[in-house]
């Protein structure tokens, strides 16, 4: 390690450090790669999606094979990262980040890197991080714009205070209607990674404590000073969390394993949400929740029922579906009516080719839930 501010001691600290990369899309790939190459010892990855061909122009850890096999992003990224740095411990989770699992996902980490693509999940992570004194390093990229900010409990305001309560969701929050170009992603991720390396290597005084917005096309770069925590805010208002942070990392990481997400998942975290109100007597069906994933023509249905992909593939084939891909984590199928289903082992299904969330629920009820089709 020749870069003096990090030095041998900083490098050792990086080796001892643990991070969560939340979301392994475009930002997440770049963040995870930078952490792995920098020698961060433990990298947890969480992502709910699988690799598709149109991801490849910006999601740099994946290749055409991953797209062809519909590999889950967390798993494909982990495999690639292990080839980049065999000493790093990489822990992939094929899961949606939600209220039920967020605590487990951030536990034992020194810092959380934001690679998500929607406001709701970011607010969830920010709340959880600030409650536990863990820095949350926000990043975002859309079109040619990039933004990043290291939000540090005890020092800066939290994300919720800065950008407000959820609810007024507007187009642009979650949809990538403006497209996105690689340089914007890499800039945002690099700004995040730089702050993360400062925090993790013991150079906390060098952190910017600003919110950076940039545009790589019409070149522009602005820095806005972050205010301190807002008194009255349950997340950044108190002086509590910060101390907890100092110790949380090392201790809880020793606790091996990570609790499986609760099976009573009651909500996706972004977009419109629709609780199923089916007339079925089967109570289990009433726990299905549909979430519209913005900008992708996709509805996510949380069925609340774990499923073995191989078993699920047999069932779908028996119902006349064409099996497009099947691996240890998910099965993808096309229904006779032309809709496409991707069913994950944790009980989530991504449905495309339907008009409404209700239709997606109905489809899942028929293909995944009914006892005797």
């Amino acid at each position: 390690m020749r870069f003096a501010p990090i030095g041998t001691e900083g490098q050792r600290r990086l080796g001892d450090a643990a991070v969560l990369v939340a979301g392994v899309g475009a930002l997440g790939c770049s963040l995870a790669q930078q952490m792995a190459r920098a020698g961060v010892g433990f990298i947890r990855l969480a992502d709910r999606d699988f690799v598709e061909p149109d991801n490849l122009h910006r999601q740099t850890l994946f290749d055409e094979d991953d797209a062809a096999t519909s590999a889950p992003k967390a798993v494909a990224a982990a495999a690639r990262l292990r080839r980049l740095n065999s000493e790093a411990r990489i822990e992939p989770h094929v899961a949606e980040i939600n209220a039920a699992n967020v605590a487990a996902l951030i536990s034992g980490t020194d810092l959380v890197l934001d690679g998500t693509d929607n406001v709701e999940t970011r607010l969830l992570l920010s709340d959880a991080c600030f409650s536990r004194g863990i820095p949350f390093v926000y990043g975002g990229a859309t079109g040619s714009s990039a933004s990043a900010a290291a939000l540090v409990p005890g020092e800066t305001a939290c994300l919720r205070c800065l950008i407000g309560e959820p609810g007024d969701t507007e187009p642009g929050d979650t949809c990538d209607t403006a497209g996105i170009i690689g340089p914007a992603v890499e800039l945002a991720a690099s700004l995040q990674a730089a702050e993360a390396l400062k925090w993790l290597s013991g150079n906390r005084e060098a952190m910017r404590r600003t919110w950076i917005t940039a545009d790589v096309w019409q070149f522009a770069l602005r820095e806005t000073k972050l205010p301190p925590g807002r008194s009255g805010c349950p997340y950044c208002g108190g002086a509590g969390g910060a101390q907890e942070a100092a110790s949380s990392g090392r201790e809880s990481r020793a606790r091996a394993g990570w609790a499986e997400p609760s099976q009573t998942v009651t909500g996706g975290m972004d977009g419109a949400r629709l609780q199923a109100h089916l007339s079925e007597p089967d109570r289990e069906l009433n726990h299905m929740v549909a979430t519209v994933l913005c900008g992708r023509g996709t509805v996510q249905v949380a069925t609340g029922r774990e499923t073995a992909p191989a078993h699920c593939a047999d069932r779908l084939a028996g119902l006349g579906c064409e099996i497009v891909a099947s691996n240890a984590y998910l099965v993808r199928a096309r229904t006779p009516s032309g809709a496409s289903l991707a069913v994950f082992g944790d009980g989530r299904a991504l449905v495309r080719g339907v008009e409404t969330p209700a239709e997606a629920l109905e489809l899942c009820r028929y293909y995944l839930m009914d006892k005797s089709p």
Partner: protein
Amino acid sequence: MRNLMDCRLYVITGESYHPGRKMIEVMEAALAGGADIVQLRDKNATAAELFGKAVELRRLTRRYGALFVVNDDVELALAADADGVHLGQDDMPLAQARHRAGRQLLIGISTHNIEQALAAERGGADYIGVGPVYPTPTKPGRQAVTTAYVAEAAAAINIPFFAIGGISPATAEAVLSAGARRLCAVSAVVGAPDPTGVCIALKRDIERWEARGSMRPESEHGAAAGEAKSDAPATAALTLLLNGKRISTGTATLGELAHSLGLAGRRVMAERDGEAVPRADWDTTRLQAGDRIEFVQFVGGG
């Protein structure tokens, strides 16, 4: 280029009112008299003719530093590099227009009652038309809303509103006394032998009422903040830098400013003099002359 907040007099084209005179000459006469905004409205022209007129008006308004707005047609407004588009209740919905035009265009909405006005404000319109206050030959058959609606709008609406419909030097007094501080005229200006003179007269009327102190929003803000400024003119607009541009505003807090810009429901971060302001503090953050305010769109992709 004038800021919308500074615009008081809005003039709309109406070629049928000035046979024998060229539209562009009549509009130049209006601009010379102080028209702040010119709207192109022509229900009879072909698309090609409209585009030609739009280009001409764009060039003209630029010369006068005035805003140029296109009626009905978002695509034409974008193609002609207009400053805004104006939509009626039966035109393209506001949300769709905003989606298409983003912040590239100001969007104005015609409203005929307070529900429509509130909906437009909530929906992020930059300004609204309030009318027709009086029966007008421009909109035959439409029920006049009277100055009662002007008073309602003055009490409830925070974005700029322009009273429209039968507005002339003869009616201006009544409309202004009902609470309007912005007027829009068509036939009274473009159908007059001297459009310049009519515009000067209307501007003078508006300014006189401004000087008396407007009923809203300034006086109310002063009261809300408990300020003893009863004998000072409440119109003292603040001059500040908004996203790098000098503007003058009658709003008193960061929250009101955001609201007046249609940003209240948007996912934006606000910054004052280089430091982010938590959203919950917007309404208690009082604006000071010379403040540097930035609203930064939240970047959500990833």
